């Protein structure tokens, strides 16, 4: 056999073996083999892989520690799937969450719209081993934004005002295509036709740039992002409550719950505002301060430590 033939067969075999290995692998990419139980006296607080979640986790850790409860931090775990799995297997006990997204995660057919409905539905939808504490006033939800000049030029201040505009392009994460607050919701609830320009930077610099230079007319940006203020963007009103409320809420494993933990964290929850989140995100993004320093500063401002 020629060397070419051998090479060819070798290549194909390698390919087949590779596909086979992938195919026989774990049936569920979320299966976590590590199930280290944390020390019962310590409450381990995890966070998602973005700055705000890490700041919130630091706030909870420091607040608990100042009341003599031993708390450990496990930041930057990843996306919701990953830290929920960590909560299930006991490697963390608590994680900062957002009401609307959490409700959608456990009950994707829920039709709740108001903040209080979402909260009560969420309590019902939670798995039996999980609980949530009080929801904060602070909210980090999606919001649809246009530039100030676009808003003035086309007289757009509310999402419904967009129904008269043709060829509307909106920059948002890819999931916006199918979410109830996305392209489908815009059409069904407000009669707005829009094309999604999928950008995966979480409403970051690329999204802002596309909005400012007119590549898109509208962008989905989190309400707590400092860039809304920095760029004088106009956040469109949502009178039909298409966009789910996303109040900050601690998701806790019932085994770690105690009256003391609950009362300490609920006090933190009662003080936190959306403006605080925006300021703290600004300190993180613009001033590059550490999550723990930002959290400490906030707790001191409200005299919680």
């Amino acid at each position, binding site marked *: 056999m020629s060397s*070419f033939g051998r090479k060819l067969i070798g290549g194909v075999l390698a390919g087949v073996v590779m596909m086979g290995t992938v195919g026989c692998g774990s049936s569920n990419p979320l299966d976590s083999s590590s199930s280290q139980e944390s020390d019962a006296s310590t409450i381990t607080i995890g966070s998602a892989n973005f700055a705000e979640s890490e700041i919130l986790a630091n706030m909870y850790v420091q607040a608990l520690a100042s009341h003599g409860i031993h708390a450990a931090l496990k930041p930057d775990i990843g996306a919701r799937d990953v830290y929920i799995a960590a909560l299930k297997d006991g490697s963390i006990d608590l994680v900062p969450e957002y009401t609307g997204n959490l409700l959608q995660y456990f009950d994707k057919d829920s039709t709740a719209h108001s903040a209080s409905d979402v909260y009560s539905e969420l309590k019902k939808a939670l798995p039996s081993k999980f609980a949530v504490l009080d929801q904060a006033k602070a909210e980090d939800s999606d919001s649809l934004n246009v530039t100030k000049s676009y808003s003035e030029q086309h007289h757009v201040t509310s999402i419904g005002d967009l129904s008269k505009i043709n060829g509307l392009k909106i920059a948002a994460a890819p999931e916006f295509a199918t979410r109830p607050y996305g392209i489908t919701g815009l059409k069904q609830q407000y009669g707005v036709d829009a094309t999604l*320009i999928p950008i995966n930077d979480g409403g970051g610099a690329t999204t802002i740039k596309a909005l400012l230079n007119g590549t898109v007319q509208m962008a989905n940006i989190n309400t707590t992002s400092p860039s809304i203020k920095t760029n004088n963007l106009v956040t469109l009103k949502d009178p039909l409550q298409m966009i789910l409320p996303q109040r900050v809420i601690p998701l806790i494993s019932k085994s770690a719950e105690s009256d003391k933990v609950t009362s300490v964290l609920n006090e933190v929850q009662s003080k936190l505002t959306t403006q605080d989140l925006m300021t703290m995100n600004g300190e993180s993004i613009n001033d590059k301060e550490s999550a723990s320093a930002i959290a400490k500063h906030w707790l001191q401002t409200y005299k919680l430590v």
Partner: protein
Amino acid sequence: MNVFSQTLLWLGDASNWEGTGGISVRLVQHMQYSLATLAITCVIAIPLACYIGHFGRALFVIPVINALRALPTLGMLSALALIFGLGISAPMIVMVMFAIPPVLAATYSGIANVSQTTTHAMRAIGFSEWQILWNVELPTAFPAILGGIRSAFTQIIATWTVAAFLPVGGLGRFLIDGLAIRDYSQMLGASFLVIGLSIAVDVLMLIVQNTIERHSRYSQLTTQS
């Protein structure tokens, strides 16, 4: 039902192959992007490598361009998207940047490996520099150049998926969009398509490479040098 059988169902579902966002369209887009990237890469890398290899000048270019490979793809994409906007140019520049090193290095070494005795002899009997390059160096380097192109092409096909972080088409859409809605069967399905595509293209190019090598009148020259 596990993710693997769901993946097969996803791949087998005819409705997933149709429409503007269907697999067929994405597959064609992916090939178009990849071929365009390869063409631009060759147009830049091969003449540059010929110059460097033939004259032995500007040798520092090779390690400098090689070092560019170490730049993080995603970071380059975001940075260039801020400069060039959301069109195809930002990802295209990034993909070309990462495809140039293998083609450049292969072409350069192919040409630089031609024996000095041969080129000196040709110069002595009156061949111009251009004729030396065209008649001896390039044909001798041809198998090496094809090898470089082959390795670049596989890399291009695999790396274009990352560009779907920005609003571009191709098979990466299934990966990035699937991740956003936790549709793992779609992601795995698209991964299989990308793997299949690179293997198919690689095998095809291997056949082309070997056919040319076997029929090339310069093959004797190559094996002796």
